[in-house]
């Protein structure tokens, strides 16, 4: 009983202590100055944004806090946050495909009135980024984000290897043409085959690095670069959501076969589940001659002491037999609807939209979507990859941005990985199954899906 008596008094002390801690702990937090939390992915441009944000803090007195999550868990983490109406993020740089769900679910603040009031015109931004990152429904004047980080898939190559006389002459002897950055996917495959297994500086190297990641979006973001150029489309432009014969057209199937051939013939061993970071590692370690990756990483690669500078070259995603497109990446910046600091968040967007800030953003390693920056006469000379970036932004296509995009994406991840990496079925069967999966998703969403 003595114990219980002791516990009675101790329990009361603990309860009181906890209450006091809560009061004073809370008081301490409340005493802090203004602060905004910005959520994004953990990658090179995020570091540039932190640097840029210091100017905002200096001007406004609002302290910036950042929540950066690795790409592999970026969508899971932040969609969960938005779904649960969490208050972690005041500002979010959300992926382009989220825009439909974010608008329909009212996760983002609609920015039309704010843009009108602050005289921010979407005409001042690269059209593809406005459609891709800001508008929902697409091609309608309803804006939910400010284009923040323009991006697309591009390619890097080992310029130093390409320019070696012995390699050039060996290539010419074999293919009857000069070794140069490829303009078409057939050329790219030839070059990749040429380098595959070749010994350079006493080291075995491989032809190309392409995306094959299974878990999040990797293989889809890779294969679409080929599919678009072979004739794949998401739906019939005249009949929305009509996918039969468009997604699984014979041309699209040929594109898928090509991606598999490229994977089988010309990639390094073990690249069965590889995305951005694995590509960077492969290129930086001198393992591959050509690398598919997002432009966002190119400033960092250019600065790399081993493979950057004169040793690296860049080229636009090659054309295919039926077109010339590339996969859109990038994100817009939005104000989270559940934020308690919406006005401060809007002030950040107003500040970020200024031409001078956008110019500095590009200089620090971010990719501005503001026309005043990218259409400036000296822009193509401002970075080694700037001309390719400009060209790419003119030929971008994006994945579905429907509210159900995650289901559509995971269905494609599964079907394509099953075919390309796990050797399951044929290309035509894969795309037929994909049409079946997507039709089911859209029907669940209540969409009318025409079969022909």
């Amino acid at each position, binding site marked *: 009983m003595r114990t219980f*008596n002791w516990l009675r008094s101790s329990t009361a002390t603990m309860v009181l202590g906890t209450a006091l801690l809560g009061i004073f702990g809370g008081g301490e937090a409340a005493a802090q100055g203004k602060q905004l939390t910005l959520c994004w992915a953990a990658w090179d441009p995020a570091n540039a944004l932190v640097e840029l944000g210091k100017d905002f803090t200096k001007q406004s007195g609002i302290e910036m806090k950042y929540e950066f999550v690795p790409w592999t868990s970026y969508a899971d983490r932040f969609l969960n946050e938005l779904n649960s109406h969490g208050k972690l993020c005041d500002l979010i740089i959300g992926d382009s495909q989220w825009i439909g769900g974010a608008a*329909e679910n009212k996760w983002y603040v609609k920015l039309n009135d704010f843009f009108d009031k602050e005289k921010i015109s979407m005409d001042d931004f690269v059209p593809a980024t406005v459609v891709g990152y800001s508008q929902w429904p697409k091609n309608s004047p309803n804006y939910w984000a400010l284009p923040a980080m323009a991006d697309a898939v591009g390619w890097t190559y080992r310029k130093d290897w390409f320019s070696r006389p012995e390699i050039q002459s060996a290539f010419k002897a074999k293919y009857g043409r000069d070794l140069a950055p490829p303009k078409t996917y057939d050329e790219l495959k030839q070059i990749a085959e040429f380098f595959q297994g070749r010994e350079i500086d006493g080291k075995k190297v491989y032809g190309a690095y392409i995306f094959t990641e299974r878990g999040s979006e990797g293989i889809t973001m890779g294969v679409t670069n080929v599919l678009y150029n072979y004739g794949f489309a998401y739906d019939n432009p005249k009949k929305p959501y009509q996918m039969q014969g468009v997604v699984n057209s014979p041309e699209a199937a040929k594109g898928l076969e090509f991606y598999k051939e490229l994977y089988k013939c010309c990639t390094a061993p073990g690249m069965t589940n590889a995305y951005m970071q694995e590509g960077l590692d492969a290129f930086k370690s001198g393992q591959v001659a050509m690398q598919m990756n997002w432009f966002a990483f190119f400033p960092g690669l250019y600065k790399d002491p081993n493979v950057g500078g004169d040793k690296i070259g860049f080229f636009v995603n090659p054309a295919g037999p039926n077109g010339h497109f590339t996969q859109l990446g990038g994100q817009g910046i939005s104000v989270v609807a559940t934020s308690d600091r919406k006005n401060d968040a809007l002030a950040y967007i107003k500040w970020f939209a200024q031409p001078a800030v956008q110019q500095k953003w590009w200089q620090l390693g971010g990719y501005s979507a503001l026309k005043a920056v990218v259409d400036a006469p000296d822009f193509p000379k401002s970075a080694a990859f700037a001309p390719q970036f400009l060209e790419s932004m003119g030929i971008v296509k994006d994945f579905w941005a429907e509210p159900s995009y995650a289901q559509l994406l995971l269905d494609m991840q599964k079907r394509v990985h099953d075919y390309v*990496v796990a050797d399951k079925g044929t290309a035509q069967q894969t795309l037929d199954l994909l049409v079946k999966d997507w039709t089911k998703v859209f029907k669940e*969403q209540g969409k009318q899906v025409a079969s022909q």
Partner: protein
Amino acid sequence: MSEPARSRATRPVRGLSDRTIAWLFVAPTIALLLAINIFPLVWMIRLSFTSLNLSMSYLPLRFVGLDNFRDILTDEDVWFRLQTTAQFVIWSVALQVVIGYGLALLINRQFRGHSFWTTIILMPMMLSPAVVGNFWTLLLQPQIGPFNYLISMFTGVPPSSFSMTGQVSLAPWTIVLVDTWMWAPYVMLICLAGLRSIPDYIYEAAEVDRASAWRQFWSITLPMTVPFLMLAVLFRAIENFKMFDMVNLLTSGGPGSTTELVSITLKRAAFEKWRTGYSSALAIILFVTVFGAANIYVKALNKVKQR
């Protein structure tokens, strides 16, 4: 206890009786259990009969009856995932039992460096599955990972000519291998407890009867450790049925869907596709399956114990 003493003991002190205090201590646990176990379970059962999709929460919530359950049970993919899971559970538990039991027999003897080797053997199970996943991803990397070089040394096959996590024929065995490496020591610990519980006099009597070591093993050691082995099988089978983190890190369910265990399917449906109604139904089906199988198994275990 004398009458006055007992009356002091049960008398409320400062307004609170012992019973009240006991309840006060138990109440937070019960409240926590209700809040994080029972309430979500009831809520999940409710959601399993709806069309809820959190990525489209603006759509009206519809009661769909047993549609989600029908969709799951008629989906070939789900059955395939269950088969994959069953194969993983059977092979990994079987290997863990054989290796764990063998290790327990070895460790049960006294030898020089006994404590050191016991610690070394137990180390894998002390690591987090996330660490194990990353660690083995590196070990199994075809170009720089030592595993392929080791295989190459014995077989002559070039190290970069095969990928343990990327080939359809090897990936399922890889997850079995890694899981066995991690959890065989756990089975060893349980078996060791069983071996140490066998009284010495039984072996002494067997010695007197001139029973061979083999006979002693078959007639004494194995029968007396079977309940422990069965317990180990139960624990490992339940754990492996739920296996997610290690496999997710090693293969993400790939190549294709080759190593996609049902827990990965469930996670993708619930937190990537946001099909809340559907995934709730799948979770219930899995719960009932594991609960049912475990109950049957526990009954069998009790029968063995009674023998």
